[in-house]
Structure formats: C-alpha cells, structure tokens
C-alpha cells in the first residue's frame, strides 16, 4: 500500500505541471469551503458572543402566550398585561432570582436648547443596569427612590450626549422628553452596537415615570436573571408559578431565556453555514470532474505503460490501486494546499481586519481535507477501473 502511495507521488513528480493544473480545481474548491464555512462559523461565534453579552442567565418575560408548538388559535388568550404588581410579587416571592427589572419601551424626541433627537426611551428599574451589564460612567443610574417617587430624572446614552450637548456637561441639566421635563442624573458608559442596534442611542428613565409619560398602566416586558446557570431552569419555573398564581393559573405570558435565543440563532447560523458549505461543495465537485478528466486522459496516454506493467506481473487490482491512489494523492494534495491558503487568509483577516467575523475551527480543516480525499476517490474510480479492465494485449499494441 505504502508502495503504491509512494509511486503515485513519483508519478506526479514526473509530470509536475499537469499535476498542478489538475490540483487547481480542488485547491479552489477546498479554499472556498474553508473561507465560506469560516465566514459562517465566524457569524455563529459573533452571535453567540453578542447574545451572551446581553447579560448573565437573562430571562425576558413578555405578555401573551406564544405558542411554539403546533398551529391553531392561542388557547384562552385573554392577553392580560404585565403590571408593576407582578414585578413586586416576583421580588417578594422569588427565591432564585438575582435581579428583576420592569421595562416600558417607547420612542420619543429628546430636546435640549433647540436641538432635538428622536430616540428610544426605556423605562427601567434600578436592577436593569446589572441585568444588562450597562453601567453609568458618571452620575447615577435610575434608583429605587426615583421609581417609587415617579421622579422625572433621566440617564443619557453616549450618542444622545454627543448630539445634544457637545462639550457641555449634561449632569444637572434639564431635557424635554415628549411633554415632560427630565433632569439628567447619569451618563452611560460607551457601548458598542449589539446585533445592529446602537446601545449608545438610549435614554433611561424610571419605569413609573415612563408609564406616566406614555400614559400606560402596563409594562412592555420584565427582565430577570437567575442566581446561577444551574438555577436558571428552576428560576423560570418559579417565575411561571408566581405569575400564573396571580392569573388564576392561566399562563398569559411567556418566559424567554437566553438559551432559547441562542438556540434560535444557532439554528439560523447552522443553516447558513450549511448553505455556504453546499455552495462551496459545488466548486469541489467541479474540481473532482477536472481530476476525473485528466485521469482519463492519463490512462489513455499511459496505455502502453499499463500493458507493460501487466506483462511484468501487475494484476488488475494493482493497476486499479495505482490510478485510484494517484487520483487521491492529487486531490488530497490539492486539498492540503487549498486548506493552507484558506487558513492563511482567515488568520490574516483575524489579524488585520478583526471586525470581519471569520473563524477557523478544526472541524473545517477536517471537512475540507476529508472532502478532498473523498473527491479523489470518486473521481479516480472510473479512470482506475478503465485502466484495470484494459486487455493487456490491446494495451501493448496501443499506438
């Protein structure tokens, strides 16, 4: 066996240019696999990081029953909203929760000295800051007293500060939000974008003031986090029980965990990676067809050689293996080269363009190399069989 592999390499060495050209298709195919899957994988890792960055063991409670299984009208959906009393009940009775924050979301214009910016206004509780891992840089975040006394105070994101205040110190100033006047008590630290959303373009106010401002008595959603990862399922269970008890046992709300989100996006990126893989495989198939053609030509050109080999003692299967291995060696070598190129490009991108989400996981290498091996086998079978089935007399007489 080793013999055959060695002589396959020697045969390639004997005809370097042709071998190189034959390899090209597989080189490109494997390069495409490595890069496209690298992009898919990069996207997955990026999303994972983003979602994990939302906070730790985070759960979101939204009103309404969301059916995740089956069709048909939602059963008994009385759409009972979430209210502050729900949050208070969770705060009192929840034993597995690290923090909980009501949320009211709305849009509105912030004005200061004739400058205006349309932005997103979030009514939150004090725990929000820790839950979502978003902290103030100066001043203070929304405090419990602010919530209790429905104070008209606000905390501004970076973008808002830049747009409305420029170099001026916003702390202690008053901005207009819709028809209310809010005193600036805190400035958020710089945050990046998350899933395309600018986390600096936000105004935080006490959740109670937000209900006043938007003239509503219910919450948009409630954020909560479990004490630990292990407690997360039990915590969700506990929230469900507490809230259901307050609704005569009816589940008119839905608890979404970060895990659910990860799973949803995970399925999405996996589908994307698979699609990219399928596209890349097409180029691999084309490369394989190229190898097959050249191998067929090679078998014809070497007909005499095949006759001689048979005459001096080669069996049909010796000839079969010779050509099959030659094909596999060409393809695998092409695969190795393509993988090397792809890996270099990925590593260069990571180094010099870190914002491009690419990744190089070992399984890509295995898939890329493995598939070039398989391509070699498939494109070698037909030529090798043709070579093996040649009649030795005809082969020796071939001109």
């Amino acid at each position, binding site marked *: 066996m080793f013999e055959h592999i060695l002589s396959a390499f020697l045969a390639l060495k004997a005809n370097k240019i042709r071998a190189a050209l034959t390899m090209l298709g597989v080189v490109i195919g494997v390069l495409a696999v490595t890069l496209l899957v690298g992009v898919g994988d990069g996207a997955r890792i990026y999303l994972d990081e983003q979602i994990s960055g939302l906070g730790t063991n985070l759960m979101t409670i939204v009103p309404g029953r969301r059916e995740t299984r089956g069709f048909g009208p939602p059963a008994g959906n009385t759409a009972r909203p979430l209210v502050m009393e729900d949050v208070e009940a969770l705060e009192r009775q929840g034993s597995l929760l690290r923090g909980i924050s009501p949320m009211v979301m709305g849009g509105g214009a912030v004005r200061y000295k004739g400058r205006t910016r349309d932005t997103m206004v979030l009514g939150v509780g004090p725990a929000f800051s820790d839950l979502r891992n978003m902290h103030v840089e100066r001043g203070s975040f929304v405090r419990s007293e602010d919530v209790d006394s429905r104070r008209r105070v606000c905390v501004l994101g970076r973008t808002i500060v830049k747009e409305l205040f420029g170099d001026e110190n916003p702390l202690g100033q008053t901005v207009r939000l819709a028809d209310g006047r809010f005193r600036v008590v805190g400035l958020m630290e710089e945050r990046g974008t998350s899933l395309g959303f600018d986390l600096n373009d936000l105004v935080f106010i006490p959740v109670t003031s937000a209900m006043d401002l938007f003239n509503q008595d219910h919450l948009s959603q409630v954020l909560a986090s479990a004490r630990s990862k292990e407690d997360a399922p039990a915590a969700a269970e506990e929230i469900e029980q507490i809230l259901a008890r307050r609704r005569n046992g009816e589940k008119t709300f839905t608890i979404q965990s970060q895990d659910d989100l990860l799973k949803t996006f995970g399925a999405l990126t996996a589908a994307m990676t698979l699609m990219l893989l399928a596209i890349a495989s097409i180029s691999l198939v084309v490369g394989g067809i190229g190898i097959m053609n050249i191998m067929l030509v090679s078998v014809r050109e070497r007909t005499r050689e095949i006759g001689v080999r*048979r005459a001096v*003692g080669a069996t049909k*299967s010796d000839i079969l293996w010779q050509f099959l291995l030659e094909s596999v060696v060409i393809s695998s070598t092409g695969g190795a080269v393509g993988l090397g190129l792809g890996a270099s490009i990925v590593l260069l991108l990571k180094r010099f363009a870190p914002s491009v989400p690419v990744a190089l996981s070992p399984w890509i290498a295995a898939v890329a190399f493995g598939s070039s091996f398989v391509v070699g086998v498939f494109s070698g079978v037909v030529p090798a069989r043709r070579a093996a089935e040649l009649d030795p007399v005809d082969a020796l007489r071939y001109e």
Partner: protein
Amino acid sequence: MSAEDADSIAIGEPLMELTDLHRTFMMGDEEVRALRGVNFTITKGEYVCIIGPSGSGKSTMMYVLGCLDTPSQGSYRLAGYEVAELDDPELAALRNRYIGFVFQAFNLIPRTTTVDNVALPLRYAGVGVRERRKRAEEALTRVGLGHRLDHTPDRLSGGERQRVAIARAIVTKPELLLCDEPTGNLDSRVGAEITKLFEDLNSELGVTVVIVTHDPNLAKRAKRNIKLVDGQVVYDGPPQEGR
C-alpha cells in the same frame, strides 16, 4: 503458486507444451482463426525462433506463450500449469515469476530512471525497495549498462534502451525470455550486439529464449526454428539455409 515449484525444472525438461492449440478472434460476425491446431514442446534451456510471413499468427502466438492471452481451444502448459485454468492474479504471478518480455518498441516507462524501469517486475514480486535496487543494478551491469543507472529512457540510444528492456526481462531470473522482433527497431550492427546478448544469456544463465522475428540473421543463429503459415506450424527444426 509458489516460487519453489519453478526451481524443479531442469535443463531438458519440458517448459512449454502446446497441444492442438487454437486462437480465434471474433471480428463482428466473422471468425478470424489466427492459430489453428498448433503442437510443439519447448524444453528448458532451448533457443528458439518463431518465424513466418506477416499475418501468420506470430504475435498472437507470442501473447499466448506469454500468458497475456489464453487459447480459445486446446492446451498450453507452462511449467506444468494449464494456463487456461488460471485467473487474473494467478496469470500475473505466472508472468512475473516465469517470463521476461522484450518488445520491438522497448516499452520502457517514460520519465522513469533506468534502474526503476528495471526494478519494476520485482515490485510486483513483492521484493523490498533496497533489494530491488541492488538486483536491478546487477541486471543492468549484466547487459553492460552499469554506468547508466539514473538516466531516463529519452537520454538513451535505441540499443541502450533495448538493453535496459532486457535487463528488466532478466531481473526476476525468469525461466523464459520471450521476445517480439527485438531487433526490429535497431540497425544491423546494434541488432547483432543484441543477438549476441541473447545467446550469452541463453548459454550462461540457462534461460530459455523464444524470439518471434522476421530477421533472418537472428533466425539462423537459433538452434531451432518454428515456422508458422496461416496459423499452422509448417516447419519445426534447425535453421534452413536460404529459406
């Protein structure tokens, strides 16, 4: 089939026995009877030329004798084996062990060194790499090419190429050297050298030499001529002058 069986054949014992041997080809609906009822026996150590006009069946005979083709009818026994009964791996082993081929067109493998060309049969005999090289060098030295080990065929003259081919044929120390017009592509001086080489190998190594040829100079130096006409043996005996 083991190598030991071969060593039991002594000089003068029958090596090849042909009994009412036929070889018929189908060309569409038409039967071409290339060999029709051939009988002869060649013993170990003989030096035989098979002669005859073009189309008489010489090449067909050579392929049958070389176990590259099998008879349509009748019997061919080589070293005691009934060739028609063997399968592909057995035939390959038989060729490898008992027969060395020399072709008119040399048939060396291009872009492959002399020594690797010569060592090729040993590879199919399962001989290790080092041993192969050693024996190939010995065979090349025997044919007078010990100084051309790492040349590729395209850098050798016709006579040298045929010597390499002969080295390849004798490297396995076969019982039978089967040659198809070995001097056909060579000028007469080089042809005479090659003829001399066959004679030496025959007398020194005791290898049986069977040559298919048109060349009267080659034929008359053999001890026995077998003449084919239309697929049948019309003469079997010592070379005839002027025929």
